[in-house]
């Protein structure tokens, strides 16, 4: 009885296996002949346990980048079009590595961008060094990524220590001495919690921090405890639902807006923020990297209205980042005059490129700033319900036009 089952097994499995090998087969990446498109890989989370909302927007940004290169720049390397190949890393290191390998070894991409989760990016970072293909971190902010000194990692990101120091400078300038930090337990949240504590210690400010599990539904205990400590500013280190939940539940217990709250990135401009929090979401402060009307390159001016028209929302920083990274890669390809990833890496390290907000040059100091270019930081405030990003109040820093005044309820 057993052998007949194995026989049936063999009849089916062996031919299937052969078919499978024929279909897949060995496929080393070879140099593309002229006229063939140049492929750029986008490796982001599109399914749980990753964050699909972020991956979606990164993809939108990258698609617009490709559009710009093909329509406005006339392609790369004498007229060859650029196209993106999208892969899902599902927020899991193993899938991230598999996706990267597929992009490099099956699709033959020249570079991969779109990394959002730090743990995945750290795992893929090693493989990029091994396979010698440039990897761009579009949203992963762990300092360990650039500290690795991988010649193939490139980051156009506001890194954790930079942003934390910026917040501390802001607090000091505004006379806010007691900072309540409420952080989610992801690498993003815990990384910032540590960085804020360190920067505050240097500046002589007081910090009380509480970490919460990302799947939490009831934040009242920790918010009550923070409220009892009477902070001057609460730093909201949540991403997605926990961030909105925090604002809502802080409002329920009377912590916000009586006490100022600062969002760690620009989620208060999203329509889903107002859907989640309603009219109670006014007066929140948030961190941004550009303000409409600020001096921006023509690359930035080109994409923002198009993005708004296509997707009915202002582009998030990560979307703009993805857009910019496609453009940087395209410029570097032209500088390298080759579509070999190793040549691309040399060009990236040696050249100066134009991004949506300014000039980009990758330096190689030891530590966190290795191959990292950080955008400027701004603090804005939503002073009216459902306020459009263009109308948000610029509070700080003064050199970009901030007037240093926070609106209170």
């Amino acid at each position: 009885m057993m052998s007949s089952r194995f026989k049936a097994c063999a009849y089916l499995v062996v031919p299937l296996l052969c078919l499978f090998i024929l279909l897949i087969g060995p496929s080393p990446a070879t140099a593309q002949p002229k006229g063939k498109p140049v492929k750029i890989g986008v490796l982001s989370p599109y399914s749980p346990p990753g964050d699909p909302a972020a991956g979606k927007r990164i993809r939108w940004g990258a698609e617009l980048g490709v559009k710009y290169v093909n329509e406005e720049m006339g392609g790369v390397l004498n007229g060859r079009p650029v196209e993106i190949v999208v892969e899902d890393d599902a927020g899991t290191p193993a899938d991230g590595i598999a996706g990267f390998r597929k992009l490099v070894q099956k699709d033959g991409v020249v570079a991969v961008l779109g990394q959002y989760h730090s743990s995945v990016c750290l795992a893929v970072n090693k493989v990029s060094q091994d396979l010698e293909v440039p990897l761009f971190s579009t949203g992963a902010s762990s300092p360990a990524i650039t500290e690795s000194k991988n010649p193939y990692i490139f980051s156009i990101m506001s890194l954790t220590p930079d942003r934390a120091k910026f917040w501390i400078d802001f607090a000091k300038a505004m006379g806010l001495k007691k900072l309540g930090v409420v952080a989610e337990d992801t690498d993003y949240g815990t990384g910032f919690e540590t960085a804020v504590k360190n920067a505050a210690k240097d500046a002589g400010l007081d910090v009380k921090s509480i970490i919460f599990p990302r799947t939490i539904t009831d934040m009242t205990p920790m918010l009550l405890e923070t409220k009892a400590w009477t902070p001057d500013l609460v730093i909201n280190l949540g991403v997605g639902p926990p961030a909105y939940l925090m604002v809502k539940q802080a409002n329920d217990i009377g912590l916000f807006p009586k006490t100022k709250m600062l969002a760690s990135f620009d989620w208060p401009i999203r329509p889903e923020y107002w859907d989640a929090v309603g009219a109670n979401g006014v007066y929140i402060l948030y961190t941004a990297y550009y303000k409409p009307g600020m001096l921006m390159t023509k690359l930035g001016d080109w994409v923002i209205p198009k993005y708004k028209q296509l997707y009915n929302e202002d582009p998030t920083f990560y979307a703009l980042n993805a857009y910019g990274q496609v453009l940087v890669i395209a410029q570097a390809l032209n500088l390298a005059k080759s579509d070999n990833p190793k040549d691309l890496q040399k060009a990236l390290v040696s050249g100066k490129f134009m991004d949506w907000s300014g000039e980009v040059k990758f330096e190689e100091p030891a530590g966190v700033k290795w191959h990292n270019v950080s955008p400027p930081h701004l603090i804005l405030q939503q002073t009216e319900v459902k306020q459009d990003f263009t109308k948000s109040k610029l509070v700080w820093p003064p050199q970009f036009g901030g007037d240093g005044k926070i609106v209170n309820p």
Partner: protein
Amino acid sequence: MGLTAAVAVAVGLPAVLSDYWVYVLTIAFFYAAMAASWNLLAGYTGQFSLGHHTFAMISAYVSTLLMAKAGAGFGIGIAVAIFTAVVLSYALGVVCLKVHGLYLALITWAFAEVVRNYLRMHFSFTGGDRGLDSALLFGTLKPLPYYYLFLGITIFTLGVIAFIMYSRIGYYLRAIRDDAIAARSMGINIVRYKVLAFIIASALGGMAGAFYGHTIGLISPVMGDFNEMAMIIIFVVIGGMRTQIGPVVGAILIRIALELLREQSEIRIIILSALVIVVMRFFNGGLMEVFRRLPRWLHLKSAESVSAYEK
């Protein structure tokens, strides 16, 4: 005989496949080992543990932390990791195997969530969500040696399970699964054998997990996410719950299908879970039962009685 052919093919495959597919198959073998060891618990003993992936994760962390913080070598790290899995599963087993099977499911499920949460929260020690760098077993990122490592682990796991199931213990386990009360009335110490099966399965899972950590180079609490357990259940159910090979076939085929369907990432898991429901409802024995019935459907063999139970 058919099995040797399959192994021979597996040994020779890396010669014709790219690094990318070798890597995919390596991960597939990891899941095959996890599926096979869970099948020992669920398919053969009737114990529904929903914390199997947690033991893999715990072992991975123990081994990695020992090596990173205490400077231990691979041998000690992995041995202690497996030992931890044994001790924990013994403790857990004693608590929840005395009572109704549903309690086991509930408690292992809660256990999985709590451990995962703890590993995330205590990030100063475990790295939390950022993950923990793990020393690479063969010092290289090239997937080839790891392919053979996990092929070996899968064969070893199957061997251990076969050895158990063809022995007297296996007879007792199947008796417990089919009718626990009758088994007890025949003098079998149910709790002892249930705990034994639990320990062995968890140790096998822990072994796979410890090596997995040293293969990927970075472990994170994502390993203990409920999605992982759900995938193991899916592999076993679709492959064939009460067979030896079923879970392995299920794991490998589905992992390959998932890779090929990368484009439709949102839909694949919807289709998979729907497929599990359909399989449970109509083809209770999974793919292996389909294989078994195939000759009959194709009129190659005369009708024979078919049951959901293999033996």
